[in-house]
């Protein structure tokens, strides 16, 4: 087997349609007779619904239906959305109703749907719906959620606490009792939304002739969505087909099955016509799930050489009003904190509490950026206090490659012991330092200082559990045309999954990559599927593609040997042909073989001849594959304005074997941009009544082209032994350590003023205020 495409910078075949305006996103799909939906949403953070009057709205022009919870079938009205990830530590398993019943618990929660001839007319009718609310006390700041006498986020619950759990190993008490140095930090971390440029959307098409229902959805997880929808609608799973067409970015929030999806599907069935709902950006700010606030209170014990003896503390997580994905973000955060270091003892007490805000679910990184920030801020504190170089301190504490596989002592979110399967953390660290010219930085900093400029450098390292199960499947089939068709439950929101899978399959079966067609994100394509989250598709779908491709190759070989009358050892598979090595190089094409593999009507198949050149593989990883990396950032701070400019950004990155460097570099670069947003810009703000304050891109800032430098990236490839292609996930590592490294660099730039920062996002006004408190403007006013 020749390996031509695996590892090559193959340009993506997704791109031609997308740069020509020929992409097919959900809102681009125009079906005849389509009606358009708009949702009535709560203007209050918390209120009792006393009454809803839809009569005037029903009389509005072009309106076909106005539905509230009372108009839904009994099962749909009563049942809350299925909880995807229950956890035994959760005292309250509360998910949302399809449409609000009696109570609304966050601004934006849907109470009613209007279905009309156009979105314009549907929105007109929304204004005619009258709701009588009794406004209830709302919980906004998660810290106040725990206070005695605090309002309850849900009127019927007697506590706002969702879960309290402890992650621990080793004798942390003894470690701290005897430690020569203990340092404590209190950290506030905010992470905002996924903010894909395409908002959520769904188009439901009922087929009245077959009772089937097709949904085009901008989902990351069509197979999971189908399961949930079948449960809610009480219909046969196989009667629903969900297609994720081109999807304009995911980043986590599109992995969720939303109440609106179910209501639109129901409306389409009830009306017997296609119904489309396209979320607008304001709705995305209000109702698409986010990540949000975590408050960490942590301390580290070290010896005189800076070697870690233990880490302990507590963390409070704002989960919002519901828990559609359980408590996985705080759980992942707790499991991520020890990171690449030998941490002999660890104890983290986590509290998860309700607030009257939209639910939180994973956004690129999923709790890991917060954990890395907490750990790396502690490491920087140790370096500062013990007067050690921050890079040197980290190098002393890294788990060494010869310690792999390394058992941390915790249970990860996949339910398996947290065992790092592979990695060379010092090598990734050194690669990043070299790209960053770290050794030369003191000279650059001295030169800048002499010119009145404040530049600084910071670094952060992480380990990330990727490629989580349960599985992903791939079917590889040679068609009578000779083309190779690949289908999978994998999805793409821009990751280039089609190109990646085609690279793997073309190498395995021996065809040209352009002869591989890949259909993903369609429940009709393969029986079982999971979808995109947790940086899992290269590991899961990539491995399945490799395994299925290997089997199909074997079938091709067997049939080619019989057809050509040669032993398999005398045959090469190249460019979609089986070619005999000797003589006049007898050849048979894959298309001819595919036709032969169908047999002839009425004739028996030859003994042990495969039926069809086809195989489906479901790779199920035994546990997470742990990727890792180090980021080094150089910044300049304008002390007059608090503006931060990122001068250089260097990444040492280990995602195992790199399938396509073009795509992986793009994932890292894009992930870093997201991390820059988290570090400096993105803050979803609410007032004391849990009223959202930042619901436009003018108030909630995303990184722009002038904020993000081109990253220098070095790949350190330590193959994972846990899958046949040796890969680990690459989708989130760019984001995970970014905020930690950037804040460290800012602190380093401002070291003449001895200011310290323990928060993200770090806004310019906060930098200026810290400098004021430090007396910076007294000394440097001139």
């Amino acid at each position, binding site marked *: 087997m020749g390996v031509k495409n695996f590892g090559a910078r193959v*340009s*993506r075949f*997704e*791109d*031609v349609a*997308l*740069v*020509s*305006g*020929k*992409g*097919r*996103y959900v*809102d*681009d799909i*125009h079906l005849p007779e389509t009606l358009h939906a708009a949702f009535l949403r709560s203007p209050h953070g918390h209120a009792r619904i006393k009454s809803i009057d839809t009569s005037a709205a029903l009389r509005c*022009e072009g309106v076909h239906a106005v539905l509230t919870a009372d108009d839904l079938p009994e099962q749909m009205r009563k049942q809350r959305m299925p909880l995807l990830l229950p956890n035994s530590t959760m005292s309250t398993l509360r998910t949302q109703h399809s449409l609000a019943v009696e109570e609304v618990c966050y601004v934006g929660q849907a109470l009613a749907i209007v279905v009309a001839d156009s979105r*314009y007319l549907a929105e007109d009718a929304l204004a005619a719906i009258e709701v009588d609310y009794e406004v209830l006390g709302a919980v906004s700041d998660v810290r106040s959620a725990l206070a005695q006498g605090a309002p309850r986020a849900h009127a019927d619950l007697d506590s706002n606490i969702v879960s309290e759990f402890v992650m621990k190993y080793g004798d942390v008490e003894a470690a701290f009792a005897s430690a020569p140095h203990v340092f404590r930090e209190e950290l506030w971390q905010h992470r905002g939304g*996924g*903010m*894909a*440029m*395409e*908002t959520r959307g769904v188009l439901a098409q009922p087929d009245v002739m077959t009772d089937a229902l097709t949904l085009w959805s901008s989902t990351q997880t069509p197979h999971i969505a189908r399961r949930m929808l079948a449960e809610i609608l009480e219909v046969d799973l196989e009667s629903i087909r969900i297609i994720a067409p*081109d*999807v*304009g*970015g995911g*980043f986590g929030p599109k992995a969720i099955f939303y109440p609106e999806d179910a209501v639109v599907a129901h409306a389409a069935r009830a009306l017997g016509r296609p119904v489309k709902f396209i979320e*607008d*950006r304001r709705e995305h700010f209000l109702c698409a799930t986010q990540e949000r606030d975590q408050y960490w209170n942590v301390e580290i014990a070290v010896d005189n050489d800076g070697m870690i003896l233990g880490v302990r503390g507590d963390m409070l997580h704002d989960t919002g009003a519901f828990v559609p994905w359980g408590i996985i973000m705080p759980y992942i955060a707790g499991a991520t904190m020890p990171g690449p270091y030998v941490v002999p003892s660890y104890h983290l007490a986590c509290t998860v509490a309700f607030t009257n805000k939209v639910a939180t679910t994973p956004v690129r990184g999923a709790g890991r950026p917060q954990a890395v920030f907490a750990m790396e801020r502690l490491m920087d504190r140790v370096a500062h206090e013990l007067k050690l170089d921050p890079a040197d301190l980290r190098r002393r504490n890294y788990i060494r490659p010869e310690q792999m596989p390394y058992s941390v002592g915790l249970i990860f979110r996949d339910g398996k012991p947290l065992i790092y399967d592979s990695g060379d953390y010092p090598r990734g660290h050194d690669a990043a330092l070299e790209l960053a010219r770290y050794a030369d930085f003191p000279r650059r900093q001295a030169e800048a200082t002499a010119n009145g400029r404040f530049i600084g450098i910071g670094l952060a390292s992480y380990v990330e559990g990727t490629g989580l199960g349960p599985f992903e499947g791939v079917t590889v089939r040679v068609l009578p045309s000779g083309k190779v068709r690949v289908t999978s439950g994998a999805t793409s*929101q*821009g*990751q*280039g999954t089609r190109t990646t899978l085609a690279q793997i399959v073309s190498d395995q079966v021996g065809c040209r990559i352009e002869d591989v067609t890949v259909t993903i994100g369609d429940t009709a394509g393969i029986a079982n599927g999971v979808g995109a989250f947790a940086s899992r598709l290269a590991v899961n779908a990539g491995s399945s593609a490799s395994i299925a491709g290997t089997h199909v190759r074997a079938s091709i070989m067997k049939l080619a040997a019989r057809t050509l009358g040669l032993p398999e050892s005398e045959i090469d598979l190249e460019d979609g042909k089986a070619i005999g090595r000797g003589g006049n190089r007898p050849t048979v094409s894959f298309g001819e073989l595919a036709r032969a593999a169908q047999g002839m009507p009425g004739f028996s198949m030859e003994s042990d001849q495969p039926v069809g050149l086809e195989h489906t593989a479901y790779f199920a990883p035994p546990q997470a594959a742990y990727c890792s990396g180090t980021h080094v950032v150089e910044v300049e701070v304008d002390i007059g304005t608090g503006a931060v400019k990122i001068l250089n950004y260097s990444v040492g990155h280990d995602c195992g074997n790199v399938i396509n460097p*073009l*795509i992986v*570099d*793009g994932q890292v*670069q*894009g*992930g*870093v*941009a*997201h991390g820059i947003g988290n570090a400096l810009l993105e803050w979803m703000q609410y007032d004391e009544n849990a009223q959202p304050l930042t619901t*436009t*891109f*003018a108030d909630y800032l*995303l*990184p*722009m*082209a*002038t904020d*993000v430098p*081109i*990253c220098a990236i070095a790949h350190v490839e330590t193959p994972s032994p846990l899958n046949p292609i040796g890969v680990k996930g690459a989708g989130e590592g*760019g984001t995970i350590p970014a905020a930690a490294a950037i804040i460290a660099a800012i602190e380093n730039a401002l070291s003449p003023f001895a200011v310290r920062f323990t928060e993200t996002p770090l806004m310019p006004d906060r930098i200026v205020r810290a400098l004021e408190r430090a007396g910076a403007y007294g000394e440097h006013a001139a």
Partner: protein
Amino acid sequence: MTKTHSISVNINGKTYTRDVEARMTLADFLRHEIGLTGTHLGCEHGVCGACTVLIDGRTGRSCLTFAVQMNGRTLTTVEGLSVAGGLNPLQQAFQDHHGLQCGFCTSGILMSLTELLSDNPDPTEQEVRETLTGHLCRCTGYAGPVRAALATAEQLKNIKGAA
């Protein structure tokens, strides 16, 4: 029924005459009335730039423009960039330099860079970046679009030099 207005507009070289409501945005007109769905809506408040089109050769936000304002105007959308059924040099550079991931913001970015390269055939990286500040891209971190724009400028310069 709501009052409508007749407009005639040239889009990508073809003239369309339609009756539209005064409140219909240009973006909805292009997407839903004409069927040119390559122009995308990311925010509908003029910040993200996904909906950018060329109006008489200058960039404009189709989400903040009403269709009735376009009577007698000449528009170019992303569908009008391709040449002879193939990609133009800028589009090709976006594929070669991984200038897009999900592709949703890309249409608008291509329109703004088309205007930039027409006004300023030899832009600096900083000038490209300043043009791109009219656009939000959540996927790429802007490295690919910047590289693609600079490579296109270089290529066009060489073509011109050879001519």
